C-alpha cells in the first residue's frame, strides 16, 4: 500500500513511485514485445475457416466449428447474471494471435523463443524442466497457442498424454472426436458457442486405465497481444481407475481496454477415476477506478460418467474485471462424487458471479460445495449455485456451505442458491453466512501487536482455509500470497 505522502510527492518522483506502486499491485502486468502472426480484428465464417486452416485441422473439426459459429449467430448474450459492463463489440476482437516461431511448433524447449522463456520466468513459471518445483509438468499457452509443454516424454512412458490441444487433434483424433463437446456441447451457451467456433489452443490430458499420474499437470495461460481474445479449450479424460491432479493459472498485461477470455473446460471421469482440477485465476483485474481488466466468461463442466468416479473443482478467483463461471459436475455414475471449493475475491470495481452446478443422476451420488466470497472496495460478489436431484438419483446427498465476507461498506455480497429436488430420498443441507470483517477481530489482532494489514490477510486466510487446504501445497502458498496482494489497501 502506498502512503498518502507518496501519492502527493513531487512530480519528479511521482512517475517512479507510481510505476513501483502499480507493479506491486499487479506484478504480471508487463507486455512482451514479440513478433506475432495475427488475424485482423473481426469475426466471420472466413475467420473460423482461417483459424482451422492455420492449425491444419481435419474437416470434421472445421465442420464442428462452423456448426457452433452458425448457432452462435442465433444466440444473444446472456443478461441474467448479476454483473454490469458495456456491450462487447465482437468485431473489434482479434481471434487469433500467435508468437512467430522458427518452426510451426517447437519440438523442444531449445526451439522456443528465448523471449517467451523469459516471459514465463518473470511470471514465476520456469519452463526449464530441471527448475520446475516439485515436478509439475507445465503446458504454457501464450495468446492463441501453446508454446511449450514440459515433462512430455516422462509422462509418455506411462501412456499419459499431456499436450497442446491442437497437437492432440493431429496425434489423437479419435480421442478428441469422441469427447470434444460431450460435456459442453457446441451450442451450450453464448460464450461456449463462441469458444467452440474460434478456440485456438489449450491443453489435452488423457490418463490411461489404472494409471495414477505421478505429478501435478498444469497449464499456464497468458494473454499478451493487444485487443486479443483468448479462447482456449481444455479436455481431460481419466480412464477407469486413473487419477490426475491438474492446475491452471493465468495472467495478462495491464491495459486500459477490456479483453475477453472465454474458455471451455471439459472433464470426463470413468469408473473409479479421480480428477482434481484447481484454478488460480489472476487475470488483470483493471485499475482502481475499474478501467481495463479481463472479462472472464468461462464454461467449465465435468462428467462423472463412471461408477465411484470423483471430480473436484477448486478455484481461487482473485483477478479479472468480471468473472462469470460455474464449474459444475454431472453425476451420472452411481456413487460418484462432485466437489466444488471456491474462493472469489472482488476488490476495487471487480465483479464476480460464480458458483457451481451439481446435477445428480446416478444413485447415491454426493456433492459437496464450499464457497467463500470476499468483497472489498466497490467489489460485487455473487454466489449462484444449482443443486439438481433428478428422479433417478436415489439416496443423493448434497452439502452446500456458502460464506460471504465484506470488507468496508461500499461492496456487496449476493447469494442465489437454486435447489431442484425430484427424488424424495435426497438429503440436502445448505448453510450460508455473511459477515463483515469484524472491527472486533481487527482490534483484537492490533492489541496483540499485529498490524491492520497483516490482521486482514490473516483473518481472510482463516476464512478461506477450508478451500486452501484442497489446493496442492505450493499453490496453497501462492493463493495466500495472491490474496494478500489483492487485498492491499482495502482497509484504510
Amino acid at each position, binding site marked *: 500500500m502506498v502512503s498518502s505522502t507518496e501519492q502527493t510527492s513531487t512530480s519528479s518522483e511521482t512517475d517512479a513511485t507510481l510505476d513501483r506502486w502499480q507493479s506491486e499491485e499487479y506484478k504480471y502486468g508487463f507486455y512482451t514485445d514479440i513478433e506475432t502472426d495475427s488475424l485482423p480484428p473481426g469475426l466471420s465464417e472466413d475467420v473460423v475457416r482461417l483459424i482451422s486452416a492455420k492449425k491444419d485441422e481435419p474437416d470434421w473439426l472445421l465442420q464442428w466449428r462452423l456448426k457452433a459459429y452458425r448457432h452462435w449467430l442465433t444466440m444473444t448474450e446472456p443478461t441474467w447474471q448479476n454483473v454490469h459492463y458495456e456491450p462487447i463489440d465482437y468485431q473489434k476482437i482479434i481471434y487469433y494471435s500467435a508468437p512467430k516461431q522458427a518452426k510451426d511448433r517447437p519440438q523442444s524447449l531449445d526451439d522456443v523463443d528465448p523471449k517467451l522463456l523469459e516471459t514465463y520466468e518473470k511470471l514465476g513459471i520456469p519452463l526449464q524442466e530441471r527448475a520446475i518445483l516439485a515436478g509439475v509438468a507445465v503446458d504454457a499457452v501464450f495468446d492463441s497457442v501453446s508454446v511449450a509443454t514440459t515433462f512430455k516424454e516422462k509422462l509418455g512412458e506411462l501412456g499419459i498424454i499431456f499436450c497442446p490441444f491442437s497437437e492432440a487433434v493431429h496425434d489423437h483424433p479419435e480421442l478428441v472426436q469422441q469427447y470434444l463437446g460431450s460435456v459442453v456441447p457446441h451450442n451450450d451457451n453464448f460464450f461456449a458457442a463462441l469458444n467452440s467456433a474460434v478456440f485456438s489452443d489449450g491443453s489435452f490430458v488423457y490418463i490411461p486405465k489404472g494409471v495414477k499420474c505421478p505429478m501435478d499437470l498444469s497449464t499456464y495461460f497468458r494473454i499478451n497481444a493487444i485487443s486479443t481474445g483468448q479462447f482456449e479449450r481444455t479436455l481431460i479424460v481419466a480412464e477407469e481407475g486413473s487419477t490426475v491432479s491438474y492446475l491452471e493459472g493465468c495472467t495478462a498485461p495491464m491495459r486500459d481496454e477490456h479483453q475477453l477470455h472465454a474458455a471451455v473446460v471439459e472433464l470426463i471421469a470413468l469408473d473409479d477415476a479421480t480428477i482434481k482440477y484447481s484454478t488460480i485465476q489472476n487475470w488483470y483485474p483493471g485499475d482502481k477506478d475499474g478501467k481495463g481488466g479481463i472479462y472472464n466468461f468461462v464454461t467449465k463442466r465435468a462428467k462423472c460418467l463412471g461408477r465411484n468416479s470423483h471430480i473436484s473443482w477448486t478455484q481461487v478467483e482473485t483477478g479479472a474485471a468480471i468473472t462469470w463461471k460455474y464449474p459444475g459436475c454431472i453425476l451420472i455414475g452411481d456413487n460418484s462424487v462432485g466437489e466444488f471449493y471456491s474462493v472469489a475475491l472482488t476488490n476495487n470495481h471487480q465483479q464476480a458471479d460464480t458458483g457451481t452446478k451439481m446435477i445428480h443422476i446416478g444413485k447415491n451420488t454426493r456433492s459437496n460445495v464450499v464457497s467463500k466470497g470476499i468483497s472489498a472496495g466497490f467489489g460485487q460478489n455473487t454466489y449462484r449455485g444449482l443443486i439438481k436431484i433428478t428422479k433417478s438419483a436415489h439416496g443423493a446427498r448434497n452439502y452446500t456451505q456458502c460464506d460471504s465476507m465484506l470488507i468496508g461498506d461500499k461492496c456487496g455480497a449476493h447469494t442465489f442458491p437454486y435447489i431442484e429436488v425430484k427424488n424424495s430420498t435426497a438429503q440436502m443441507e445448505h448453510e450460508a453466512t455473511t459477515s463483515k470483517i*469484524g*472491527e*472486533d*477481530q481487527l*482490534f*483484537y*489482532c*492490533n*492489541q*496483540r*501487536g*499485529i*498490524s*491492520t494489514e*497483516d490482521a486482514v490477510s*490473516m*483473518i481472510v*486466510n*482463516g*476464512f*478461506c*482455509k*477450508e478451500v486452501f487446504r484442497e489446493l496442492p501445497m505450493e499453490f496453497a502458498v501462492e493463493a495466500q500470497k495472491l490474496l494478500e496482494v489483492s487485498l492491499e489497501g482495502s482497509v484504510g
Partner: protein
Amino acid sequence: MLQIRNLHVNVQGHKILKGLTLTINAGEVHSMMGPNGSGKSTLAQVLAGRDTYEVTEGEVFFEGRNLLELEPDERARAGVFLAFQYPVEIPGVGTAYFLRAAVNALRKHRGEEELDAVDFLEFVKEKMRLVDMDEQLLKRSVNEGFSGGEKKRGEIFQMAVLEPKFAILDETDSGLDIDALKIVADGVNSMRRTDRAFLVITHYQRLLNYIVPDFVHVLVDGRIVKSGGKELAMELEERGYAWADQSIRHAAAAS
C-alpha cells in the same frame, strides 16, 4: 510508568469518563472496582486504543510517551496488553499461528530475530503450564469453540507469552469458577515483577483474595471516588458501592 490526567471520554455522544486521574508505577498492582456502567471497561478500551471511544479531554502518558497518539498495534508493541472481557473468535486462524505472528511483530519491533514454528513451540510450552492449558488448544482456531473459562485462561496465557510491561485485566474473573479463578490468579502472580505493572478491573472483591493489589480504586460514574489499600476492597464488599460514593458526597458537603 502510566500517568492518566483528567481523562474525559465519550462513547456515541455519552460522557462515560469524566475526569479520571491515576498514576501507576512499575511493580504495582492496581485494582479498579466499580458498579456496572461506571466506566471500567471504557478505561480499558481507551488505554488499548479502541477508536470508537472519543477522548475529549485529558492526557495519558506511558513511559513518558503520549499513549493517545499511538495506534493500537503500536501500543501493544510498546508493551501494553489488554486481557479482553470478551475474547474475540477468529475462525480458521490457528492459535499457535496467531500468537507467533504477535510474538514476531514484537520481536521485530525490538530488533530481535523472529521465531520459527519449532522455536516458538518450545517457547510456549512452558507458558502453557503456567495456566494449565491443553496443548491441543494451540491447534484450534483463536478462541473458536472455547468455553468461557478457556477463553479467559487463554488471555492470561497470551499475556504470559507476550510478556508486556503493563497489563490490563478487564473482568477476567467474570464467569470463572473458583478453580479457574485460582489458575488465572496464579498466572498473574507468577508474572508480578518490579518492572511490570497491572491494572485489574473487577466487579467483585473475590478475585482480589488471590491477586492481592497494592492499591484499590473505586470508579463511580466516570470518576475515581475513593482510593486506598487492599483493605478498601474488603470494606466495599461489606458496605457496597453506594457507601463509597456517598462518603465522598458527604465529605464534599462538609467542606
